[in-house]
């Protein structure tokens, strides 16, 4: 029995998904959401308890399910991010009447998939998790059935997503063919054995496919084209979930797979990821400048952030990997917050066009302040969390020396570029006057749950920004552990 205790968080979340389905039948939306949130939080507490303190009940890392699962601080860290993101999104949707129990069920299923990816130790489990999350989010994207945009986004997401997952599977199959095992951790163990050829072109081909497939999930250029469309078309909470959760899952999967791959051809991957890092961040930032739709802009900003995070894959030192994880974490928090704000202000009749945000601070000062903090944090303005994570990440690149410093320079220049479009929105909110006829101030009840989630996220952003020491230390610890496995 105790052997199954380790699956408690996943099981809890699965239960919450089923309960949500049940309550949907009973037409009790609040209850569905509430129970999902509570169970998620319980799971979160458990994971925090396991991972936060050394000498917890689990000795990490350890494998389970005959090698199908692998429990590590590293995985738990990502699970924490997934749960925070999901809970924030769910809290927000409690305020909106259009989301019912099915929504919570789907989002909990997606969360389950993500959680499984985080602890997966085998290709099968990895793909199952990815697909579970993927299929749930395809549906979530099309959740507003009446909306043409929503459905179209779902369709596009579905097509691109399934093509990508087929590419991923294809790549994994080649990996299996060359190495003879589907276990990723075994793969890692076997990597040192001489019978596995190091310079097998098939292996390169396999990894190319995997990169293309997972590049879709993390919205890496040139696999990013779907992201703006889908983020724009999807309901805002779902966009938040996609940008913060689904993308993080993609990175998680990449971390797991390239744990072994890096052994085979680290320098080649280094160059590859360096190239994609610069391409992705530049594409994201350049294209974000001209966007007129706030959600598209946030999507491009998300693409740019993927570029920054890719630096960690390229540099591949403990500090850089820690920085990459920190950046993943902070990006998830900031992006989910930003999308939630977008969702909330739409309730007040503010459209999705960037110019609709003009003069927002005059009417919704708290929302505007939170949004400003999130945007400035995304831009990397100190002393917010986004600055600290970029600082650690670029420090990692600089520490590695050599041409990696170019990555850091490209990163900082891009982040300067990004300041332009983030600051523009902040300026719109605080300085410009509202365009006439906008801001039809719908009289509605206060979206109190959304305010709570926004408040919590802002507190995290500011607090981690001001006192980042434990978080940085935690990430460095995880990163070192991750590096040691190699």
């Amino acid at each position, binding site marked *: 029995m105790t052997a199954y205790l380790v699956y408690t968080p996943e099981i809890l979340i699965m239960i919450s998904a089923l309960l949500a389905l049940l309550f949907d039948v009973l037409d009790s939306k609040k209850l569905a959401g509430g129970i999902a949130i509570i169970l998620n939080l319980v799971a979160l507490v458990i994971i925090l308890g396991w991972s936060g303190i050394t000498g917890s009940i689990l000795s990490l890392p350890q494998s389970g399910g005959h090698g199908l699962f692998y429990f590590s601080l590293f995985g738990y860290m990502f699970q924490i991010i997934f749960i925070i993101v999901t809970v924030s999104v769910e809290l927000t949707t409690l305020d909106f009447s259009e989301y019912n129990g099915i929504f919570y069920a789907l989002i909990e299923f997606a969360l389950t998939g993500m959680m499984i990816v985080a602890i997966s130790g085998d290709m099968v489990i990895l793909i199952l998790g990815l697909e579970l999350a993927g299929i749930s989010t395809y549906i979530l994207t099309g959740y507003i059935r009446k909306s043409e945009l929503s459905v179209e986004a779902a369709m596009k997401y579905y097509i691109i997503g399934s093509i990508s997952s087929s590419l991923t599977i294809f790549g994994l199959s080649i990996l299996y063919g060359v190495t003879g095992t589907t276990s990723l951790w075994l793969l890692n163990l076997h990597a040192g054995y001489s019978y596995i050829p190091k310079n097998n072109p098939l292996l390169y081909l396999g990894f190319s496919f995997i990169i293309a497939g997972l590049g879709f999930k993390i919205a890496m250029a040139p696999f990013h084209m779907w992201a703006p469309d889908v983020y724009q078309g999807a309901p805002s909470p779902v966009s938040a979930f996609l940008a913060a959760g689904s993308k993080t899952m993609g990175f998680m999967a990449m971390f797991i797979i390239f744990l072994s791959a890096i052994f085979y051809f680290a320098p080649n991957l280094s160059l590859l990821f360096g190239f994609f890092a610069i391409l992705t961040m530049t594409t994201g930032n350049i294209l974000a400048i001209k966007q007129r739709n706030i959600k598209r802009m946030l999507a491009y900003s998300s693409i740019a952030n993927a570029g920054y995070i890719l630096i960690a894959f390229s540099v591949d030192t403990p500090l850089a990997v820690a920085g990459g994880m920190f950046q993943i974490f902070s990006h998830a928090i900031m992006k989910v917050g930003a999308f939630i704000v977008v969702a909330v202000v739409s309730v007040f009749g503010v459209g999705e066009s960037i110019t609709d945000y003009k003069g927002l601070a005059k009417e919704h000062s708290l929302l505007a302040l939170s949004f400003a903090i999130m945007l400035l944090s995304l831009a990397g303005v100190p002393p917010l969390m986004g600055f600290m994570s970029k600082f650690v990440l670029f420090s990692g690149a600089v520490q590695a020396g050599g041409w990696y410093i170019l990555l850091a*320079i490209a990163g900082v220049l891009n982040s300067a570029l990004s300041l332009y479009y983030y600051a523009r929105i902040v300026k719109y909110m*605080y300085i410009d006057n509202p365009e006439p006829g906008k801001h039809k101030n719908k009289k509605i009840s206060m979206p109190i749950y959304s305010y709570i989630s926004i408040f919590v996220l802002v507190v995290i952003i500011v607090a981690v920004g001001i006192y*980042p*020491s434990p978080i*940085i230390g935690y990430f*460095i610890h995880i990163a070192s552990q991750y590096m040691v496995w190699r």
Partner: protein
Amino acid sequence: MSFPVLSLMLIIAFAGALFSFMSKKGRDIALIFSSIDFILSLYLMFSFTYNTFSYQFMEKYGWISTPYITANYVVGADGLSIPLILLTTLLVLAVVIYSWDEKKNPSAFFGLIMLEELGVLGVFISLDFLLFFIFWEVSLIPMFFLIAYWGGPRKNYASYKFLIYTHVAGIIMLVSVIAMYFYSGATSLDFAAIASKSAYIAPFTQAVIFLGLLFGFGTKMPIVPMHTWLPDAHVEAPTAGSALLAGLLLKMGGYGLIRLAAYMLPAGRSAMTPLMMGIGILGVVWGAVAALSQTDMKKMVAYSSISHMGLVLIAIATWTQIGLMGAVFLMFAHGLVSAVLFMGVGSVHHSYGTRDIPKLGGIADRTPMLSVMLVIGSLASLGLPALISFPAEFSILYALFSVEGYIVAIPLATLTIVAGFYIWMLQRVVFGKYKSRYVNKKPHDISLYEAIGIAMLISLIVLYGVLPFILNNIILSSFIGGMV
């Protein structure tokens, strides 16, 4: 550990900003809090221990301690920072008084000014790089808003230009310092820790890092050719913004260049000395000459700032005692003088509705007080002895001659041009026939608040011009001795 006066100053500035934002009477709060900060900085100056080559009023608390990145909350002051701290608190106080009659959203206005004080003070007192950089960036945001909200017709362009330029400069500087940190193998991001190791970095690496720092700090100073943001920002900024921008923000560049670049990377500095000299001299000439052809008074003053900052760069490049003393003193002097000039120009704009030199004329007729202040400001800026800039400029020119010889003729000759555009401006604007076709038919002389704000600065301009040793002794006894 003694009384944590430096942290207290930061807290007061922050509290002032917070309360100003929240209160309806932002200006009263800003006045009270900035006065307290000013008094505290006077306390700093008077309780300063002479002839010790170490930081004083030190406070140190742990902040970030991880295997790779260690940073602490360390603040302290020495002879380099004390004048700049004094300048900061004084200028903010003067600006608050000067802008007393601000009508447009005053609470936010004064809150931003206090926030600016927080950032700039933080830059001058923090002795840890991460802390330094945080304050560095904190100082940008309020200025961006000051320009973007209270600015002139092209405020959009100017505010973004300011933001992007200085932000790019900041992050290039960030990367350089991180490189310095890792290449030196320092134990933490403390200035002291980096400084104790950084001299052992390979010379070529030092030179590269130094170049990055020069770009970062230089853009802020600004040095040619990264200077074009300054005139635009000044022209569009409100008077208070211009005064703070020229008075304080430019000094951050010079300060950083001395403390972080030139001091910590001796080999890099000596490799880059010719470049710094060249750029400095180019800046001196460029700023002065460009100022000559400006018709907008604010733009003219802005270009003269570029010229003066070129002198500061030269002084740093000489790396001699007298040169550095001159650099710090000139930064202090220029802070006061440019603030006076910008305030004067702001009042001209306020009274007559234009700053365009050809459209003005004979304003001494209707606004004598304002004219006197403009004259004094101009004279101080062109380096008239017995006013504050002269000892500084002389020291720098002397240092330049003692290092590079007769090349000093170029900046010296430029002094004529500097005098030229100021005196010419005075002839056209202040003197001559009164022109009656102004926007304001009945121009009024400056208000009491404006006058007090300017007069505070002018009195110091005269005081330090006549008795420069008050400040020089602090600069010399502490920081120079420790550095050169």
